[in-house]
């Protein structure tokens, strides 16, 4: 009997492997991926590699589904408090619910934090302790007032369904540094955002670039199985499979596609071994777990804490793009059309401590320098009330923040008007945000292209400028 061919002994070349097999699970070094894969795959659009040094290796995207309110979190507006309850003093744009009330002052107080004196509302005490690491962009604009379009836009650069997600673009451009994990992982806290899993899809990019969804409940990864080590029967099956495949490959004269498919099985088996280890948080100290809030008395904080800790473990292992979606606090995400106070209180209780701990933990391990953390919703909320005590959607000016990975900490960028309604200074579009994220990863957003339907398509369509003012 011949020994089973292992992937590194099978007759495929490294280049074939890069071209044909799972580049998302790249077995090869980053430099190799950069050198071959992108050039080969984007022949039409040129070489997306930068002329500048990548500042970030990975991205953690803290996705605040539903749209947190900028004027209650990172963009204090005293005028709202002064005019609270009075008719709104500026022109109102059409809103999603068309039920606009009076000016609504923030129910939360703002304080300055850190050496930088960054303003953060009392909703985020733990995040505020990291004030000097945060770069708050107060002048974000989107183009859509509807969740689904805005979600697609934030994730894929297009308001319509079906485009590749930014994590897929990044995985396509850079591959994964992890031996046995995909380039783009979604840690699903429980909520799938409006628009569904298409927010994480590969669109027209190769299927391997799509986000792999790890669930926080039940079996984490579909079809992965649970056993880190195969039982005897499985081992026997793998042996026979290798034997039969070897012969089939020989019959096809070592055809690339079949060789790549064989290699994929080895990667899949490696992933089956790796994921249980990844998910086992027992190796983390109890103090650290406590810092994240894994023992918090609020169930949703516990879930989000696990997500944040897993995010760190994933970037440690070389995963490129980790996205966290929110657990369900029962307030319909951050979408507080009514009961702003209760909804934002609970949502912040859920995410604040874990995010604060994540930033500290990344910093302590020296990971923050090359990990870009992005906190953003798909839009912000109106400074005037919806009904009595809610806020409607507002794409005209809202706040996000970034930290680490080559952005300057302890700063704000851009501004909204005196009501916190519309961005009026240094507006940053979603395309600009994408261009900047790619830039920090060392990718030129104008050169990262893929030909589909007759066009060389980009994450940033034909728009986007790198926001130089926030680069460290």
């Amino acid at each position: 009997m011949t020994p089973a061919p292992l992937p590194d002994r099978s007759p495929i070349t490294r280049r074939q492997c890069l071209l044909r097999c799972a580049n998302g699970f790249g077995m090869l070094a980053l430099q190799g991926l950069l050198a071959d894969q992108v050039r080969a795959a984007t022949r039409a659009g040129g070489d997306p590699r930068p002329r500048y040094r990548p500042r970030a290796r990975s991205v953690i995207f803290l996705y605040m589904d539903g749209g947190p309110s900028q004027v209650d979190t990172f963009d204090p507006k005293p005028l709202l408090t002064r005019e609270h309850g009075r008719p709104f003093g500026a022109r109102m744009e059409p809103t999603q619910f068309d039920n606009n009330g009076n000016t609504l002052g923030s129910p939360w107080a703002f304080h300055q934090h850190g050496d930088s004196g960054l303003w953060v509302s009392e909703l985020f005490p733990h995040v505020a302790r990291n004030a000097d690491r945060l770069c708050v962009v107060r002048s974000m604009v989107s183009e859509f007032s509807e969740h689904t379009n805005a979600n697609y836009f934030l994730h894929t650069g297009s308001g319509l369904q079906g485009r590749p997600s930014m994590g897929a673009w990044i995985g396509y451009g850079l591959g994964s540094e992890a031996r046995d994990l995909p380039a783009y992982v979604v840690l699903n806290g429980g909520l799938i955002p409006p628009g569904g899993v298409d927010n994480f899809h590969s669109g027209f990019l190769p299927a391997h670039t799509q986000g792999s969804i790890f669930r926080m409940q039940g079996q984490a990864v579909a079809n992965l199985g649970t056993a880190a080590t195969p039982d005897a029967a499985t081992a026997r099956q793998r042996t026979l499979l290798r034997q039969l495949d070897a012969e089939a490959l020989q019959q096809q004269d070592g055809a690339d596609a079949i060789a790549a498919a064989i290699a994929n099985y080895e990667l899949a088996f490696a992933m089956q071994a790796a994921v249980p280890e990844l998910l086992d948080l027992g190796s983390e100290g109890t103090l650290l777990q406590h810092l994240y809030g894994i023992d918090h008395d609020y169930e949703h904080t516990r879930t989000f804490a696990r997500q944040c800790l897993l995010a760190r473990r994933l970037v440690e292992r070389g995963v490129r793009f980790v996205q966290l979606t929110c657990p369900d606090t029962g307030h319909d995400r951050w979408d507080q059309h009514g009961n702003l106070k209760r909804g934002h209180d609970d949502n912040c209780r859920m995410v604040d401590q874990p995010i604060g701990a994540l930033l500290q933990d990344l910093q302590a391990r020296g990971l923050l320098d090359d990990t870009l953390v992005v906190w953003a919703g798909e839009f912000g909320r109106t400074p005037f009330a919806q009904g009595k005590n809610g806020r409607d959607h507002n794409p005209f000016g809202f706040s996000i923040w970034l930290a680490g990975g080559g952005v300057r900490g302890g700063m704000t960028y851009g501004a909204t008007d005196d009501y916190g309604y519309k961005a009026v200074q240094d507006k940053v579009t979603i395309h600009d945000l994408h261009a900047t994220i790619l830039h920090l990863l060392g990718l030129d957003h104008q050169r990262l292209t893929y030909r589909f339907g007759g066009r060389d398509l980009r994450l940033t369509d034909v728009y986007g400028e790198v926001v130089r003012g926030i680069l460290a």
Partner: protein
Amino acid sequence: MSAPGDRTAARALAGFLGFGLVATAVLAQQQPPAADRLQVFEAEVRPLLSEHCWRCHGRQVQKSGLRLDHGSFLRAGGTRGPALEAGDPAHSLLLRAVHYQDVDLQMPPRSRLAPAQVAVLERWIADGAFWPDEPVPAAAAPAPGFDFEQRRRHWAWQALCDPPSPPVRDATWVRDPLDAFVLAGLEAAELAPAPPASPAGLLRRVCFDLVGLPPAPALVTAFSADPSEQRYRAIVDDLLASPRFGERWARHWLDLVRYAETLGHEYDFEVPNAWRYRDYVIRALAADVPYDQFVREHLAGDLLPVPRRDPVTGANESVQGTAFWWFVEQTHSPVDVVQAQADRVANQIDVLGKTFLGLTVACARCHDHKFDAITTVDYYALYGIVAGARYAQQPLQPCDLQGEGYRAVLLLQRRLATAVATAAAAADSADPRWRQLALLPPERWDERLGSAAVPALRPGDTLIADAGDAAGWQLSDDGFGSAPWRGPVADDLPAQLQWRLLPGPWWHSGVAGTHRHGLLTTRSFVLDRPFVHVRVAGSGARATLVVEGFQLVRDPIYGGLHRSIGGGDARWVTYEVGRWQGRSAYLQFVDQDTADLADEAEDDRHDRGWVAAQQVLSSAVREPPPATTAVLPPLPFAAAALPAAVQQALTELAAAAARLPLSPTVPALAEGNGSDGHVFVRGNPQLPGELAPRRFLQALAGARAPAIAGGSGRRELADALLAADNPLPARVQVNRILHHLLGRGIVRTVDNFGALGERPTHKALLDRLATDFVRSGWSQKQMIRRVVLSSTYRMQSLAAAAARERDPRNDLFSRQSLRRLEGEAIRDALLALSGRLDQATFGPSVPVPLAESCNARGRPAQSGPLDGAGRRSIYLAVRRNFLPAFLLAFDTPAPFATVGARNSSNVPAQALALWNDPFVRQQCQRWAERELASGPATRAQRIGAMFTAAFAHPPTPQQQEQCERFVDDAAQSHGGDGSDLRAWTELAQVLVNQKEFIFLP
């Protein structure tokens, strides 16, 4: 479509005034001395414009066609109009832009100017917008032009030619002209074609290619024993005649039209009855409907004078082709309804262009096409046609409104009325009016009762539609008859006498019973008044105001456009339409109280209501006009104790109505009144540009718009697209057939024949095949047949060393392609192995199994069976937000755009799916059970049978030995004997993971 510019400006102006910003600026009407003005201009204005504006509106770049480096340019303006009105800041676009209050126009784009800078511009304009007397700067070099004629020379636009087969040296290899073209190329390159595939390999290939299933083991055995030409031809003919053929090839087509049964986005609402379109495609392919007819049905199947009918059921087939327009994604509650329509139509045009023409027409949405001979005017000429059509559920078997059955029902309605009046007049206690009514034809009763007049218009009312005039209405199905009704109606058949008289003429869906589908719409009109009043009556019905084609009418925002209609009596319904001023709209009356298009009950036959419409007014007045209601005199008998003559008339009426055909419906197109639209400058619906009269692409049909006889212009579009001198439909479809059978088309970019697409590797062959295709009467089956009978098709996929070196991309067709099976074929093959395959055809889709955690909005109530009830994959539900994970792993495309060539990725998720997916494990166990129960007796024979079933060939001796040892070891470790189910299940799992299982060599 309409022109919103003025209103937008007015709105912006109102915004300024609200801020009191203008007041200071218009104070100074007398102008300062010239020297002062020059000094102010040079010191403050010119530097400001230079620093903040000229980068995008200067000599080099003129965004929006606007230049701001000379006074004359400012006054001339750009695509939005003049940039300023000297002396009038309030009406100056420049000021509007820098004030930053209008989210649609904010300049400079990144940051607002400082208030002092805004004040400078405001004062400058108020003072007359002084610009020194200086020469007008030279225009910058014009941007490289759009050279239509030069682009039109691209190969794909050229007429088809009909080249003879080229001479070849080895004529024995040539089975079809196709082979001669291929061989001539190979011989020129000094290459030999690859040897033929093994009989087993060829059989497996042709079975998957034609029917998407592996060959039955018996067929493998038979063909191995007799792999003759005659036998092969017989097998091919059997496969083409198999019901499985249509199912296989329909899936290819569904990829093109982004077939889906839901609308996607937040709630993933349904497209009711979408599956009928899938069945229509399967039937059309099985029946080999000529491709040109098939295309015509897609574009205008609802308008054909003689629709194609199903030979068995008589159902209208043609109308079902138009369903594909509605597989466009749609969102509820878009804040901008015009933008929503623009996005919808863009997708529809994109699919139209790629599917039928292999052109990226939608690239011309914002600007002339970057590479092809397609202008923005071309795009908006098509836009007018597409946007002019409407959504409707159309009946497949409408009743013949001129036929005896229908006319009998109308007659019986009259007879019932006469019977009632006669009986009432005879009764002692009767209202004396009955005696008068009994002498009058029922259609004149309302006159006698003093309520015949339709409501009178007042100042401020504009009549949009009136039942007395057919011009205002668009009928799309048979539910409302062919003419308005006047007179009493028994509208709750076949229950007891439920009787009503609506005064005047009414379009009425209840005259011939309430069980059939009824949809009535008005002509489109512009909402130019704050109110729309609708005179309507009905029970269990709705009236919906459809704005800019927007049909997903739900809260928030749009809920008020939907009105439930009940109670039966005539009444006014008033819509407040202030929010939609200037928008185009029409009224839609549906005899079901559903929410909207996503909420039509599936084939509902029992709980339909009725609805009647008389008048639609656009009005400046909040209150509707006064109207009279005809009140019939009280009946002198109880409904439960009808006189015999009345009872008999009622029974006859109910029986006649019940005999009218009930019809299933399909999402389809219906005609609107149609109108030309404007170009949207830079794709922005807020910026209407030049008029774009409806017509087909200039590069194919010339620039002159043909007269449109009426309606949307789709009939004319179909004629132009299928005109004999348009080479693209035949080329594109023949190329697709080759793509599916040879692994690539002659043009590899099957959906893009434009300048950015790949060039044809065998242009003469493509033209020859396209010409033959048309000559054959557009028969797809004949084309498929000749390809699979060719020598080219039958080659093996292994490349000889010379071919690998000199033809690495297989540009010469020196060999077949090694292809990975699609997800559908893999899944269907698993079902075939396990014996679970249910060969039932057609019908509603089978729900997909959903994980508990798949909790996104719009999750269907029902999770489907793990094995999809054994149905072929084409019958699985295609819900946009809940697509089958197994198929997605194998590159089944998400339905959002035309996909003529699927990705064929090769990823670990596929390994995980085949190894661990519970569906695969379940089928493997069934397969093992099946082999143990009915298979041959010995272990060796059983292994041989399983190999043959999975791979269409027996194992090699080495494989045989490896498998035998595996089964022995496995059985032993499980403590079982030679027929241990676990052991054989484990073997089955290994076999379906062996790579040959998912590849076609």
